[in-house]
């Protein structure tokens, strides 16, 4: 009887932990504060703003732009279309660890790093820095992958 209870309990614990992992990656404190800041800023800049949207982030991530050096370029050029896979720097060939926090737990955990790469990579792909709203959309897209 006790053994049966133990088995049931273990099963229950297993299901619960599985459920929470399905709930997906959650931002840590500093990232929550950063995202909240982006949201407040977005509301100021765009009164009709209704929250960040992963689908819009996906569009930004996949959109191709002209590049002098590479012909056409998008975020996918280096990061691939599957964020759980490793990517490759188009210029140097250096391997890039997956962007998805589910594949690389260090992703989206450090605000300084996040800001650095957003600035560099928007400049690289769009020839300008990202707007507050664009940055929020893209971060939500990466988080959801």
């Amino acid at each position: 009887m006790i053994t049966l209870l133990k088995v049931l309990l273990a099963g229950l614990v297993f299901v619960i932990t599985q459920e929470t992992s399905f709930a997906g990656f959650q931002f840590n404190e500093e990232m929550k504060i950063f995202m909240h800041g982006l949201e407040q800023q977005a509301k100021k800049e765009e009164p009709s703003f209704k929250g960040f949207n992963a689908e819009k982030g996906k569009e930004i991530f996949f959109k191709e732009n002209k590049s002098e050096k590479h012909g056409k370029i998008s975020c996918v050029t280096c990061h691939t279309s599957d964020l759980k896979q490793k990517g490759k720097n188009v210029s140097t060939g250096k391997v890039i660890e997956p962007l998805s926090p589910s594949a690389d737990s260090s992703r989206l955990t450090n605000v300084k790093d996040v800001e650095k790469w957003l600035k560099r990579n928007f400049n690289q792909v769009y020839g300008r820095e990202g707007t507050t709203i664009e940055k929020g959309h893209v971060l939500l897209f990466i988080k959801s992958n």
Partner: protein
Amino acid sequence: MINIKAIRVMIVFLAALTIPSVSLADKKEDAKRLPRITNDLYRKECGACHFLYQPGLLPERSWIKIMDTLDKHFGEDASLDTAAKEEIKKYLAQNSAEKSAAKRSKKILSSIKSSSTPVRISETPYIQSKHRKIYKEVYKRESIKSIANCIACHKTADEGLYEDDNIEIPKK
């Protein structure tokens, strides 16, 4: 008593003998090898995108120019915050070719005109002359990508060793 004294003298004498031989071997090694990279921030920030060039591959003035123009870094935006930029710049400057004991550093240095500040290692006359027999097409191979990717052919480049014995040019 005398014996112990004699043994002591002997030990000191033998110990003294080992000192110059060790440092001689070290010197030989130092002359062959570009000093290893010792700065973690340089490793993290610059190594994220490309091969980590040993600071002894360029003169100090070149590293300063590179680090002061990171927003336009060979056609890419590689900008860093001021603190990180300054730390890496200091590390590169303090370990530049002028301070390196490697022969190769001295050869690179003496090949550069004092009026020029190259920002590409591959544009220094010494490195150019060393690569003169390599067809340009070779660098376009998928696993090489460009002449800047030292480690594609110099298999021990990450240890600072660029000896002929350690070269293996990939076919694709």
